[in-house]
């Protein structure tokens, strides 16, 4: 206990020292992409991590734009970040046992701390890779990683950017912020209870698979990508899941495809697209034998308006998943041999860049619906479903303030109208959907 409290004090002191560096030095430490290019964060990001059109150009060209002309990176492109958070949700302290015996599960200091290697390696090779300490799980692991080679040619007088990506999360290589790896709300409470049902493509395969893909962006109009992934439980993909327990074990290859249309006119940009994957996954706890098949396809769209101090973004994502329980149904893990699941995510963001910082907010709507399955979605206090339905829906209200471009303070409120199938007594133990309403305060610093 004493060692833990001493550790917390030392951590606070260290963070305070870093903040003093920021304010006193003026020059400050900067994220690696900013250092490499000499551009401000605002060149590539509206409000980080969301990308501007120039940011998408930087990414699709392999993270290699540099103010230096040398073949190899001028300096090792290292950056860091830390997230500190506070969560309020009914009965939170009764449900979560902090590993360090702290008196409350509400404070997560840190929620997460990461080191990044981000930028040019050499020539046309670049990388975004994140090593993360999870302050709730008390673990260190390789996080999102995207290693690229990119080049371009002229095709009949029109430009074609093409490249290869090695990554460990379907959609991490995507250019728009409508996809699960980089979508709103970008960060959320690590300790709050959340709906039971979710599609596989919506983050379940992050660092559970590793793979390689090719992509092409023609005339800044049509983007296409095709990847194939394998389990990080074994084989050549194993390093891409370093530090992560592979709990979702895929069998064989997981193909992923992406197609997007983009149009830019003045301060406006619009993207409409689709993406999807097919994954054969062993039932939980198994690493061989029969598998269940998940077929996901998605439609998405993003509109951005960036002019002067005004930043407007609207995003929409619809995911459909077909679940064939070829392995789980015979085992008695599901009531149905197949189910369908559908997810909607919509959000509207406005931020204003003032002299005192960037200030703004987001209103978002989320919904998951699908076939009832009383075995898959069984009653259980807090996390279960009294009706066997996966249905959950609600809103997210978020305010954000960035006093400087690499420090973000977020106040987020998640409101549940329906949770695991019902508005009232959803778990069969008297808990209502609104009991899971969550207040989340986040301080997010990039170095």
């Amino acid at each position: 206990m004493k060692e833990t409290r001493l550790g917390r004090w030392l951590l606070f002191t260290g963070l305070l020292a870093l903040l003093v560096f920021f304010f006193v030095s003026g020059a400050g430490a900067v994220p690696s992409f900013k250092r490499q290019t000499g551009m401000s964060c605002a060149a590539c990001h509206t409000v980080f991590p969301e990308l501007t059109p120039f940011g998408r150009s930087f990414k699709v060209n392999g993270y290699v734009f540099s103010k230096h002309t040398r073949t190899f990176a001028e300096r090792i492109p290292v950056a860091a970040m830390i997230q500190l958070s506070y969560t309020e949700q009914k009965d939170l302290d009764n449900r979560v046992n902090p590993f360090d015996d702290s008196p409350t599960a509400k404070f997560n200091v840190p929620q997460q701390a990461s080191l990044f290697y981000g930028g040019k390696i050499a020539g046309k090779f670049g990388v975004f890779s994140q090593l993360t300490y999870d302050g709730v799980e008390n673990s260190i692991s390789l996080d999102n990683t995207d290693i690229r080679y990119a080049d371009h040619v002229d095709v009949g007088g029109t430009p074609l950017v093409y490249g290869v990506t090695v990554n460990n999360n379907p959609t991490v290589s995507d250019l728009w912020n409508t996809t699960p790896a980089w979508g709103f709300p970008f960060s959320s409470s690590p300790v709050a209870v959340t709906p039971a049902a979710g599609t596989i493509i919506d983050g379940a395969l992050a660092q559970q698979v590793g793979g390689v893909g090719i992509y092409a962006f023609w005339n800044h109009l049509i983007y296409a990508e095709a990847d194939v992934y394998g389990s990080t439980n074994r084989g050549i993909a194993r390093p891409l899941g370093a530090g992560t327990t592979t709990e979702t074990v895929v069998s064989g290859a997981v193909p992923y495809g992406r197609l997007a249309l983009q149009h830019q006119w003045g301060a406006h940009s619009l993207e409409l697209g689709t993406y999807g994957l097919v994954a054969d996954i062993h039932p939980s706890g198994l690493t061989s034998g029969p598998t269940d098949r998940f077929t996901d396809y998605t439609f998405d769209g993003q509109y951005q308006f960036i002019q002067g101090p005004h930043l407007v973004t609207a995003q929409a994502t619809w995911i459909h998943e077909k679940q064939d329980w070829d392995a789980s149904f015979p085992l008695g893990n599901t009531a149905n041999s197949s189910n369908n699941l559908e997810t909607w995510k919509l959000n509207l963001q406005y931020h204003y860049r003032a002299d005192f910082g960037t200030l703004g907010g987001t209103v978002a709507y989320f919904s998951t619906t699908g076939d009832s399955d009383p075995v898959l979605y069984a009653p259980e206090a807090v996390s279960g479903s009294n009706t066997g339905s996966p249905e959950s829906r609600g809103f997210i209200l978020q305010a954000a303030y960035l006093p400087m471009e690499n420090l973000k303070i977020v106040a987020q409120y998640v409101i549940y109208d329906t949770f695991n199938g019902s508005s009232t007594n959803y778990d069969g133990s008297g808990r209502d959907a609104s009991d899971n309403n969550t207040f989340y305060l986040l301080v997010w610093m990039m170095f």
Partner: protein
Amino acid sequence: MKKNSFFIMLMVLPAAVLLWSTGVSGKDDGLGKKIYNEKCQFCHGIKGNGNGPAAASMNPRPADFNDPRFWKKNDEPKILETIERGHGMMPAFDMKPDEIKAVMGYISHSFKRRD
């Protein structure tokens, strides 16, 4: 595994110090050229012809400062506004007045054709 706050600081602090210590830039002569090469050449190219490394993924292409039509359509106030507020894919640049003046002078003297 015990929570190791020392390890967290070992990860974060050296990175922050390294980044801070290498992030300082000093003044030098040729301010306009320096700023152009750092911030503008990605899109507009080292030769100002709109063919920088990023240009291939942009539609429309970045402005060609060698083209007399650019100078006919864009006077100094308009160029200043574009630098400060951005335009299309071009981000806004938060530069001091003397920096903007320096880079505008560099673009004009280096790339504008004088017949």
